[in-house]
């Protein structure tokens, strides 16, 4: 099929304008960009159906003269869906405005927090930094707490052992 000059130019123009608006921080402009992108895409789909023809209605035109009905069916639902999504975005904008008096997409604080992150959760702390009773049982060899060892050696002088990281079952007694 031979492409026309006009349709690609319109499609390209609409895409360019849509993308430019989509990259804005103002949600209203993002939404406008979304609508332009929707229009551009619908036109792209339509142009893929080939050159113009007669309406695809039997009795009105012969099948050979008709424009391609398949892209039309696809576009028809796309139009309605674009409307539904646009309404949803509008509701988002309204909510954002109502709650924080802003309708711009700011910097995502959660992302920034992760980027700056230094502290770790308790489950990720190095075992050496934990209280003795929270340490895993196999960690004994790394422990060089002379004071604890001496205390244990004194308390249990009769019973030789070097194991200092016993998970106590009667913590209250200690």
């Amino acid at each position: 099929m031979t492409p026309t000059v006009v349709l690609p130019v319109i499609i390209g123009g609409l895409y360019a304008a849509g993308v430019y608006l989509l990259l804005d921080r103002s949600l209203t402009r993002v939404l406008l960009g979304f609508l332009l992108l929707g229009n551009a895409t619908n036109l792209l789909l339509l142009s893929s159906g080939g050159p113009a023809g007669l309406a695809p209605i039997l009795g009105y035109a012969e099948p050979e003269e008709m424009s391609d009905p398949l892209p039309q069916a696809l576009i028809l639902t796309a139009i309605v869906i674009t409307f539904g999504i646009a309404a949803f975005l509008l509701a988002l904008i309204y909510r954002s405005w109502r709650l924080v008096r802003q309708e711009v997409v700011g910097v995502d604080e959660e992302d920034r927090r992760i980027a700056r992150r230094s502290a770790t959760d308790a489950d990720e702390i190095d075992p050496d930094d934990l209280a003795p009773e929270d340490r895993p049982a196999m960690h004994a060899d790394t422990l060089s707490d002379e004071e604890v060892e001496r205390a244990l050696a004194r308390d249990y002088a009769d019973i030789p052992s070097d194991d200092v990281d016993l998970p106590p079952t009667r913590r209250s007694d200690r």
Partner: protein
Amino acid sequence: MLALLLLHLVAATVAPLLVRWWGRQAFLALALVPAAGFAWTMAQLGTVTDGGEVRETTPWVPALDLEIALRLDALSLTLAALVTGVGALVLLYCARYFEPDDEGMGRFAGTLTAFAGSMLGLVLADDLLLLYVFWELTTVFSYLLIGGSGARLAARRAASQALVLTTAGGLAMLVGLIMIGETSGSYLLSEVVANPGDGPFLIAGTVLVLVGAITKSAMIPFHFWLPAAMEAPTPVSAYLHAAAMVKAGIYLVARLAPGFADVPGWRPIVLGLGLATMLVGGYRAIRQNDLKLLLAFGTVSQLGFLMVLVGAGSREMAAAGLAMVVAHALFKSTLFLSVGVIDHATGTRDLRVLSGLGRRLPVLAVIAGLAGASMAGVPPLLGFVGKEAAFTALLDGGLPDRTAALLELAGLVLGSVITAAYTFRFLWGAFARKPGCADTELVHPPTPLFLAAPALLALLSLVLGPASPLLEPLAAGYAEDLPLIAPEAEKLAIWHGLQPALALSAVTLLGGWAVFALRAPINRFQRRVAVHASADEGYWNVLQGLDRVAVLVTGTTQRGSLPAYLGTILVVVLALPGSILIFRAPWPDEWRAWDSPIQALVGAVVLVAAVLALRIRQRLSAVLVVGVTGYGLAVLFALQGAPDLALTQFLVETLTLVVFVLVLRKLPKDITDRHRPRERAGRGLIAVAVGALMAAAGAVAMSVRTATPVSVAYPDEAYRFGGGQNIVNVTLVDIRAWDTLGEISLVVVAATGVASLVFLRKRTGAVDRLDPVQLARQGRSGRRAPRGQWLAATAALAPERRSVILEVITRVLFHTILVFSLFLLFSGHNEPGGGFAGGLVAGLALVLRYLAGGRYELGEAAPVDPGLLLGVGLLFAGGTGAVGLAVGAEVLQTAILEGTFPVLGDVKLVTSLFFDMGVYLIVVGLVLDILRSLGAELDRQADEDDPIDVSPGEVIVR
């Protein structure tokens, strides 16, 4: 066999309920489930010892050739008997281990039963992938059981450590299993072992599978998760971490050894790691003060021993290994359960504190003494039989290489010396009276039922020693697949006469006693040479390094700016498909200027409007120029020969404008936020490039198209099968009705989303209607607009907001428009129109009522819940498909009903009309929901000055 597994599943599901009804007694009922498994297993003993096997295959996912293939042979039977027998006894023990008022017992009971089922499935599975599924199930249940309620930090960390390590090993194993399965050409375990194939792929696969086995069975250097897992309640330690789960790795090695022992790499890994684990575990065990930890390190040590035996790949070693597996499961679970009794009775497991328990708990002392004797290898217990068989095997052969065999023997004897030493330490620590320690008081003396499980297990250890010839058929049945290296295979028995192995056994016991007696200097020595590094520390360092890398990567890639993300995506689009377009795509040879000159004219208008949309910072004007592009598009559609599209686009564009105005009236007039010039230049560059890319892609796609469009046959099909002349409409409701069904579902979701965002708290119910009493009061209050009411609820509007002309027009047009919308719906099958267009027209009628009469007028015009319209519409559309299915046709297939009726004449009813009605209702529902939310509710919030301030304690997540 499958029935047994399902029985476990059902029991696990109802376990929490049983615990709620019967408290801890529920464990007694649950114990019957593994007990049934044990009974069934024993019933198959005859078949299996005669050399037979029991198979059962159930299709699972036929498309993937997956099946639930279960098989019971000598090895499986031995393990299955252990898993079910020990499982039943441990559940019995749980009935007294827990106090009646313990929390989380229901969850625990369910998880433990589910674990028992998974473990049974693991040893019965004959399919590699099924084996993997059960393998991972045991990992997950072990995680849940170690973690417990998740309230304690140490338990959480131990649980996640065990999970991370065993899952990592499991994943390696999965890859290995697939490599093995592909090499051998079968995924049936029995066939794979019989004929494993060869080649480097098989070697790599074998090594990967061994990684899974050594993580699961806690071999060095992954041994540290097992002692840490002692955070779990004692029954869990006894069952999972002594008798059952850690045996999974041993089982897998034993299962594969007949086919894989000669694969390069197998023996160095299995024998080397096994021996090292046995020595390291024992070394750590002889200086533990916590009885449970002592046993945990002892388990690590014994697992190493078992790994050496079952992995050696010779008949005599395998037979010894199987005997030792049984012996270990019996004595180690007894010892763990005994520690549980001690802990329960005294409140401590610290052997420095315990003293004189032997006198106070004589029965327990005998039980633990028997089990300990089995562990140390004292005749006539089963442990002695297994150990002696192993020594004999290595003395006479055992391994193909003599030197290696003697080295292993020396290592195993040393390991057994240490085993005896820590056994003595355990028994002394638990029951002896120690100088300087007061006798431990019994807080809760154990009841007979509490002691029943360990007593039974200890008795088995004792009886099976002299009765070990009974085990011989099983051991031989498994081992006969393996080559015999010694001159002759020795049978399992308690007495083989005076032979070197007996001397070695004596050496281990005497050496163990010596090590125990010299514990003070040995422990001092151990403390002096302790290295300040451990596998556990290595694990945490690796994990923290991963965490840091993850934060670094996330922090550098996720900068938190939406335009930056979108820009990145678009740049990738430009770089990849864009470069292919430039370098590879065939450019069109010829171009046409246009289809018609008007097309160019409209195109110019659309482009100008698009450019204006970039410049204008006033919200409403920007919306209007974007609307111009939309209307222009409608004209283009009409020119292209698409009247349905043009109609829909006009209607939607109008509705869009109205909805925008409804929201924008609440926002400031101008968009003030501006970007920096550099940002604008960047955006412009990307935008122009994307525009050029899409234009070129469209043109190229057109010119290179060679295939006949699928829609060539549509006109014919549309009339013959769809019964309609408007091909686009028939496409929507028949040919591609599935598409449409999905799309209207999306519309329903969008409408619901809009309402949820605006209403915040309550979003069901119809639009507010006017209260007649209130209306009458307003009527009396005097100063209002002209008396003649054209619309139902305009009286509620303030006079300055009313427009009589609009009211009159609405009054005249509203019903006409509705009728027209119905006409579009019904005629749409043959003329332009259909459910979408009809619904939009009806929606516009509602818009008119709302604009003319305010929010109460909307309530009068459509006194229904929009959610109801959406739901009924979806029901209509989906129901059409379901009815077609019910009468034996395809889903969403159209039926054409024709007939002649009085008055009406010839009537032709196409069933897809009902589908289109659903579409109509959904579109009306969408418009009504939007009007209700963005129109009426916003009005109400303004009228009643209803601040959506947070109530105390409510948090708004941005």
